[in-house]
C-alpha cells in the first residue's frame, strides 16, 4: 500500500523526523487559507502516487495566498501519469542549501532491510544507482537489531563534514528506520533530505510503501488507503478472496493460482491474443467466489471472451465444475466462454460441465487458442 506524500510526512512527524509543517487541502479556496495560515511563500504539491510531478506541472511555488489559490486550482483535477489529482499539499517554501537522499528498502537477495544514502538527492535515485552507483552508500540493517546509531553515523559522516549536520542526519536515519519497522514498511524514502540555508536538515519529500502482509497489525493505517479507481476494483476483488489486476486486452482470464494465472496471460499473448486481466481465484471452488470473479470480468468493457483455466490439485475438478455451473447460472452475460479443466477428478468435472452445455478442454494451449479465436470473431453481443 503506497501512501501519499502528506500521509508519509504525517508518519514521519509522529516519529519525530523533521518535515515542513504543511497542510493537505482538496480545494483551491482551502489552499488559499492554508497559505495564509502557513505564511507565504508556499509550495503547492500535487498528491499522487507517481514520480515526476514537478515535470508534469504538479508542483508550483506561490508568493501570495491568491497565487496559492490559483496554483491549487491549476493542479487540482490535473492528470499526472493517468492519475487525477484530488489533493494538494501546501508546504512552507524553504531555502535549500543542499539535497540528499535517504531510503530504506528490503533487499530480497540479502533477505534484510538496507538503507541507501546519497549526496545526490532530489533526483531519480534509480538513475543515480544505474549511472553512478559509487554515489550511493549502502548500509545493511540487521532485522533483529535494527539500524544502530553508530551505523547511521558512519553513513552520515560520509554525507556531511559538519558535526551538527552529520548528527542531525544520523538521527533522522535512525528515526526513519524506527518508522519503517514500526509501520512494517517495504519502502521509506526521503528524497530530498534537504539541508536548509540555516544549516538545519529536514525531509522535504516523503514516500512510504506499506507491506500488505502486515496490515493486520496496523488497522489504523488501513484508514490511510486512498485507492485510485483501478485500485478500488482490485481492493473489491481482495475483499472477495480474489487477486485481480486489470490490463487492457480482450481475453478475460479466471485462473486458480497466481503462477498459473500469469502463465495463462503469457500463453494468450504468445498465441497472438491480449489478456484483459490477471485474476487468481485461489484454491477454493466456492461458487460465490466464482460469481464475483465472473462479475469482475463481465464488467470490463474491453473483454470479448472469457477463458477459465483451472488445474484441479487438492481442489477436485468436480467441485470446481459444480461451483462454475452454479456461478454461471447467476451471471447474465453472452460473452463466449472457454473452460479448461484438468487434474484431480477431471472426468467427473467435465461431465458436469457438458451436462450444463459447456464442453471443457483439458489443454491450456488449446483453450487459450479457442478463446482468442472467439474474441477475434467479435465476442458476444453486449
Amino acid at each position, binding site marked *: 500500500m503506497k501512501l501519499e506524500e502528506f500521509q508519509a510526512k504525517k508518519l514521519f512527524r509522529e516519529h519525530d523526523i523533521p518535515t515542513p509543517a504543511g497542510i493537505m487541502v482538496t480545494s483551491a479556496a482551502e489552499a488559499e487559507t492554508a497559505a495564509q495560515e502557513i505564511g507565504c511563500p508556499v509550495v503547492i504539491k500535487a498528491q499522487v502516487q507517481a514520480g515526476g510531478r514537478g515535470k508534469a506541472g504538479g508542483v508550483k511555488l506561490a508568493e501570495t495566498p491568491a497565487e496559492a489559490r490559483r496554483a491549487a486550482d491549476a493542479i487540482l483535477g490535473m492528470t499526472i501519469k493517468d492519475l487525477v489529482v484530488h489533493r494538494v499539499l501546501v508546504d512552507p517554501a524553504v531555502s535549500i542549501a543542499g539535497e540528499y537522499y535517504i531510503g530504506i528498502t*528490503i533487499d*530480497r*537477495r540479502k*533477505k*534484510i*532491510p538496507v538503507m541507501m544514502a546519497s549526496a545526490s538527492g532530489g533526483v531519480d535515485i*534509480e538513475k543515480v544507482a544505474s549511472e553512478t552507483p559509487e554515489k550511493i552508500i549502502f548500509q545493511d540493517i*540487521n*532485522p*533483529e537489531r535494527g539500524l544502530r546509531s553508530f551505523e547511521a553515523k558512519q553513513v552520515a559522516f560520509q554525507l556531511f563534514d559538519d558535526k551538527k549536520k552529520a548528527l542531525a542526519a544520523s538521527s533522522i536515519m535512525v528515526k526513519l528506520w524506527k518508522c519503517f*519497522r514500526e509501520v*512494517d514498511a*517495504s519502502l521509506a524514502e526521503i528524497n530530498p533530505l534537504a539541508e536548509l540555508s540555516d544549516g538545519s536538515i529536514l525531509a522535504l519529500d516523503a514516500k512510504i510503501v506499506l*507491506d*500488505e*502482509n*502486515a496490515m*493486520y*497489525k496496523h488497522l489504523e493505517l488501513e484508514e490511510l488507503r486512498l485507492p485510485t479507481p483501478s485500485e478500488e476494483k482490485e481492493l473489491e476483488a481482495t475483499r472477495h478472496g480474489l*487477486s485481480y*489486476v486489470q*490490463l487492457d*486486452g480482450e481475453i478475460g482470464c479466471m*485462473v*486458480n*493460482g*497466481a*503462477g*498459473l*494465472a*500469469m*502463465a495463462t*496471460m*503469457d*500463453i*494468450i*499473448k*504468445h498465441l497472438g491474443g491480449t*489478456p484483459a486481466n*490477471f485474476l*487468481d481465484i485461489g*484454491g477454493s471452488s466456492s461458487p460465490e467466489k466464482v460469481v464475483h470473479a465472473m462479475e469482475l470480468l463481465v464488467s470490463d468493457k474491453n473483454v470479448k471472451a472469457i477463458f477459465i483455466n483451472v*488445474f*484441479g*490439485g*487438492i481442489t477436485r475438478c468436480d467441485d470446481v465444475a459444480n461451483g462454475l455451473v452454479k456461478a454461471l447460472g447467476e451471471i447474465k452475460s453472452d460473452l463466449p466462454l472457454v473452460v479448461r479443466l*484438468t*487434474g*484431480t477428478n477431471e472426468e467427473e468435472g467435465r461431465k458436469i460441465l457438458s451436462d450444463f452445455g459447456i464442453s471443457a478442454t483439458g489443454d*491450456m*494451449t488449446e483453450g487459450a487458442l479457442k478463446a482468442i479465436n472467439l474474441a477475434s470473431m467479435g465476442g458476444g453481443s453486449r
Partner: protein
Amino acid sequence: MSILINRHTRVMVQGLGRDGSFHAKEMVAYGTNIVAGVHPGKGGTYLEGFPVFNTAQEAVEETEAECSVIFVPAPFAEDAILAAANAGINLVVAVTEGIPVLDVSGVLKELNELGVRLIGPNSPGLISPGESKVGIMPGGIFQRGPVGVISRSGTLTYEVVNQLTAAGFGQSTAIGMGGDPIIGMKYNDYLELLENDGDTEAVVIVGEIGGSDEQDAAAFVKEHITKPVVGYIVGRSAPPGKRMGHAGAIVEGASGTAAAKVEVLRDHGIPVADTVEYIVKLISEKLGG
C-alpha cells in the same frame, strides 16, 4: 534418492485447524511419515494415528520429529517457525501465506544461527514422489523419476509436473519455494542439493517476475551445475508496480521483468521455454526421452 525428504523423514504438522488437519490426512494418505502434530490445547489427543502435543518442544522431544510443516495463521506463524527451529527441527516448511516481510527477515537470521532450513513461507511445500510429501501438493499427478522441479508457484508447478508426468518424465523432488519477497531456501540452495542427488538427471526452474533470484540461479548454474537445466518464466505480460497474486511477484526496476530474466538465463546457456509444452520438449531433448 531425493532431496530434503524421503520416506523415513519424521514430519510434524503445526497448526491443526481446518487446513492443517485436512492436509495432515492427505500427507498420511500419501505415505508421509507424520509422527506428531502441534496445536496448543490439543495436547494428548490423536489425529490419523499420530499424537498431538501442546508445544513444538514437547513434540520433538517425544517423537524426534526432524521436519515441520506450518499451517498456523499468519499472525502466529513467526512464533511457530521459531518454536520448531528452537525445538530441534532442521527443516521447516511454511505453507502459511501473508507473514509480514520484516518478520520473515528476522526469523531467517535466527534460523541461520540455528542451522535450520526454511522452505517458504507461502509455499505449497515439496514432494519426493513415492517417498514423502510435505505441504499441500496434489500427490496424484506426481510420479517418481529423474527431473527435479524448483518453482516459485503452486498450481503452475502442478501444470508443469502434470505434463512432465504425462510425457513419461517423473520427478525426483519438486519444490515450491514460496511466493513471498523474502523466503528461506532459493533456487541455488535447491540446485546444489539436486546436483548432488543421484536420482536427479535434469532440473526445471519455474520462475516469475519480481526480484532477481532467476538471475542468481543462472550464474550459479553456469558455475556449479553439470546437470541439464531448463527454465520457464511467467509474467511476461505483467505491468510494472502491480502485485500479481504472490507478494513477491511485482516488477520493481528493470531486473524484475520476465524479459530480463529470460535474457540472463539464455545468456548463461540455459534454454528457456515459452510454454509448458516446450518445457517437456526441452527436457525430452536433454534426457532423450
